[in-house]
Each structure stands twice: as C-alpha cells, then as structure tokens.
C-alpha cells in the first residue's frame, strides 16, 4: 500500500510539473505584462507590479476601435448565422423536398473548403461587391456556415414531430412554428454554437488581414499584428500586455463560463 501511495505522489508531482511547464509561456507573458520593462526578462520577486504596460499599449495603437470592430464583427456574424443557418437547417431537417440530400451534401463541402482556403477568389468577389475594407466583407463569407446548418439540422431532427403538428393545428405558419417550437427547444445548441462562433471569429486572422486595411475595420487580431510588427523598439512588456489585452475578454468569459465553453466545444466538435 505504501508503494501505491508513493506512486500516487509521484504521478501528482509529475502532473503538476507538466502543467507548470505547459503554462510557462503564459506565465512569462503575464510576468512581463504586469511588471516594468526593466524586469521583463529578469525575475525578482520584489519587482513592483504595474498596469503601465497596458496603459501604454492602449494609447500606442487604436485598440479601443479594434475592440469595437471585433465586437461588432463577432456579434454580427453570430446573429446572421443564427438566422440563415436556422432557416436552411429547418428545411433540411423536416421536409424531404426535391434535391434535399444533394443540397445537404453540397453544403457539407464547406466543412473542408473554408473561405480562407479560397482567399484570392473570395477577395475578387468582395471587390466586385465593393465590400473590401468593410466589416460586412470580413463576415459575409462565414455567414452561411455548413457547420451551423449541420449542427442545427441534427438538433431539429431530434425534436418530436408531434410538437410541430400541434403548432400547425393551431394555425401557426412555418416561421411561427420555428420561433415557438424549435428555437426554445434548441436553446442549448444555440448557446453552444454561439460560443464556438464567437471564439472562432474573435481569433480569426488571415481573412480579416487580407480584407481590411484601415483602423475603422481592423479587428483585434489584425490590429495586434500591425501593432507588434511595426517597430516598437521591441518593448516586449507592452507587446505582451497588448497580446493579453486582445485575448482578455474571451479569456475572462471562458474562466467564468468554463463548463459552458467546454460543453460547447464538445457538442460542436469542429471549430
């Protein structure tokens, strides 16, 4: 028994060491961000704590505007995805309409061929639509999401048809039925999908990098990259502060709603 206890201590110790090692880059960034630049690379427990790096980063680049852009972007995409994917998913889940199976197969292609694989053609399309350097342009290719349609279709299929029929008997139209019967029952799935969508688009980089070229449209990720790549005299403390700041809201949301986040990623499977 003693050897078993010893083994347990050993495993626990190793696990902690591994966890610490895993979090090391993050701790290092936190250290640099919350201490004066002079202490960025040497460790001294008496080093004073400061928020100055965050203040400097906030003023050194138009981060307030970037935050606004990202928030508008992620909420806009999520709202549009909810509407468009719900409609398509409902049709595909409930009605055997002509060509529905082929259509579903074609929609699923997008799971593989995401808009960022076709950057050049999609950029040209946006040019024709006059949507370069607009938030609409950043979001538009992602609005009809195969993943969302798939997820909601599976959910709607599991909702008993009798509920649907009952609503129809009372004279509800298709849209009213969706609104009154399907949406409330699928609420957890919408929460999951929403969290996945928001975290994906908060972090998305390549497509917004290509489409945006002004402060008014740049989301945080692109703003951070512009900020970090312009020669800052490489003040790592400020760059770390900026990096943490851009991830901040999502991180805090994650810490608060940890369980919901993890459930969502599990439910959603693919980001």
């Amino acid at each position, binding site marked *: 028994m003693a050897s078993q206890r010893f083994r347990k201590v050993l*495993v*626990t110790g190793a*696990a*902690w060491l*591994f*966890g*610490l090692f*895993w*979090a090391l*880059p*993050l701790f*290092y*960034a936190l250290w640099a961000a919350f201490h004066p630049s002079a202490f960025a*690379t040497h460790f001294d427990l008496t080093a004073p704590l400061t928020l100055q790096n965050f203040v400097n980063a906030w003023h050194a680049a138009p981060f307030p505007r970037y935050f606004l852009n990202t928030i508008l972007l992620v909420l806009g995409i999520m709202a549009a995805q909810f509407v*468009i994917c719900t*409609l*398509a998913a409902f*049709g*595909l889940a409930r*009605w*055997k*309409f002509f060509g529905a199976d082929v*259509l579903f197969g*074609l*929609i699923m*292609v997008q799971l*593989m*061929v995401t808009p*960022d*694989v*076709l*950057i*050049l*053609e*999609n950029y040209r*399309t946006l040019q024709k639509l006059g949507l370069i350097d607009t938030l609409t342009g950043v979001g538009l*290719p992602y*609005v*009809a999401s195969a993943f969302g349609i*798939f997820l909601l279709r599976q959910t709607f299929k599991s909702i008993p048809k009798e509920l649907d029929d009952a609503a129809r008997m009372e004279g509800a139209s*298709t849209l009213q039925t969706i609104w009154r019967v399907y949406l409330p029952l699928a609420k957890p799935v919408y929460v999951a999908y929403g969290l996945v969508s928001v975290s994906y688009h908060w972090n998305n*980089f*390549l497509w917004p990098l*290509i489409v945006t070229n002004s402060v008014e449209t740049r989301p945080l*990720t692109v703003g*951070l990259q512009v900020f*970090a790549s312009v020669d800052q005299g490489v003040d*790592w403390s400020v*760059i*770390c502060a900026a*990096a*943490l700041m*851009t*991830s901040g809201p*999502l*991180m805090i949301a994650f810490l608060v709603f940890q369980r919901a*986040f993890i459930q969502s*990623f*599990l439910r959603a*499977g693919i980001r």
Partner: protein
Amino acid sequence: MQPRRNSRLNIHVQGWLLALPAIVLLASFTHIPAVVTVIDSFYSTPRGRVPSSFIGLDQYHAMLADPIFWKAFNNNLLYALITVPVAIALALGMALLVNGHIKGRTALRLAFFTPTILPMVAAANIWLFFYTSDYGLLNQIIRGMGFANVNWLGSTSTALWSLMAVTIWKEAGFFMIFFLAALQQVPPDLYEAARMENVGRWTVFRRITWPLVMPTTLFVAINALINAFRIVDQVIAMTGGGPNNASTLLLFYIYQVAFSFWDSSYAAALSTVLLLLLGGVALAQFYLLDRKIHYR
C-alpha cells in the same frame, strides 16, 4: 384541415426558399470560387496590357520546378506528420491525468486548456518573446543548463520546429476535452473487472482505454489533419516563412503569391493543390470514420 395536395408542392417550394439565402452565400464563397480557382489555374496571369490566355498545364509544370513550392509542400507534410500525432498523444496523456482523482485537477485542466482560447496571433507574439534569442526565457533556461544560445526562429534548422511547438501547445488542450469526454463514457465496471484480475496499468490502457477511445482518436486526427493544411497565422506572425523559406507552408505560400507577388494564376494552381489535398483528407474521413459515432 387544409387540403394536402397544395402542401405537398408547398414543401418543395418552401424548402428551397428557406435554404435559399444559405445556398446563395455558400455558392458565392465556396463552390463558385473553388471551380473558378481550378479553371484559372489553366490560364496565365494578366500582366499590364497582356491579357490572360489559356496555357494548359504550364502553371503546374512551373510548380513542379518551383523549389519554394516543394519546400512549402514538404514542410506542410512534415508539419502534419509531427504535430498531429504529438498533439494527440499529449492530449490523451493530459486527459488521463486529469480524469482521475488528482490534487489540483481543476488548475491542471485550466493550464492545459487555456492556450486553446488565446487567438493564435496573441499566442504567437507571446512565443516570439519566449523564443527571443538574447533574453527569451527559453534561452535563459538553456544557458542556465550550460548550453549555447539557439536562434530558434532565425535559423533554418529550428524555425519550422519552433512553429510546430506553438501549434502543439495550442491544439493539445483542445483535443484533451474530446478525450476527457470519451474517457467518461468508458463503463467503470470494465476497470473494476481489470482490477479484480490484477491486470497491470499498461495492459488496462492497451486493452480497454485505447480501443474505447479509438473513434475519438480518429475524429480528432482527421480534424487536426485538416487544420494542419490550413495553418498560416503563426507563420505570418512569427517568421514570415523565413529564414530562406525554411518555415513556409502551403497556405502561407498561396497568400504570398496572391497578395505579395500578385501572380493570381499561379496562386490559383497552388490553391488547386491545396483543394486536392483537403479533398483527399475528406475521402479518408469518409472511409475511415463512421460519422454516426460522433454525430448521432
């Protein structure tokens, strides 16, 4: 009751109408551009007054003779071959660790999962600092152990591997949650029985755990593989494909050819290769993975 005759026709019309907005958007940003990309790859890039003309497979011949393409292609294969298995093995290890009764389980889960939430660009910048050659933490540790400084991102022999480390760091925690979910589905009486029989830990893992998490492993592997061929953020943020194209990857090269060199037809040919690769993964998924396992 309304007459049923009408509603049958209605279903076809309404079904298509409901799906219409999604169809239009998907066609405009996925299907049509994919087809146009393939067609474009058979034409030359218009330059100044010279309009685009049909050149057959010339772009592909040029591609076969393009050392940077081969560098990107081989780098990407290596990237996938290393990061996917390593991230999966680490993820399974993490899941096994935090699935049991271990002190500080919540903190450990958090340590493993947090990198997943960070935007790749933010993670990349944090790691840039971590890798800095004179005073980065990594080199401080290495010097402390008595070794010489390594220029992680600036040397052709380490740049790609340094990027791989960031990818693994970001992905392992994400995959961990899938394994955690799978482990929680394993019937406890199986482990109970194994303990009664006094079976060793390794045998328990090999005979019970591993086979039962196999569907999860496949599912995660396929998704990781798809991601591996679309990796670009950390290349842009950390190395710009350098030094001397040592860390270039397919999507990054496409991005460069399309938006720095403005050679649109060559970019189309490169994109076609990427589409074929992704199509290959899709086929593998179709044959290997019974989707019902995960998507009831």
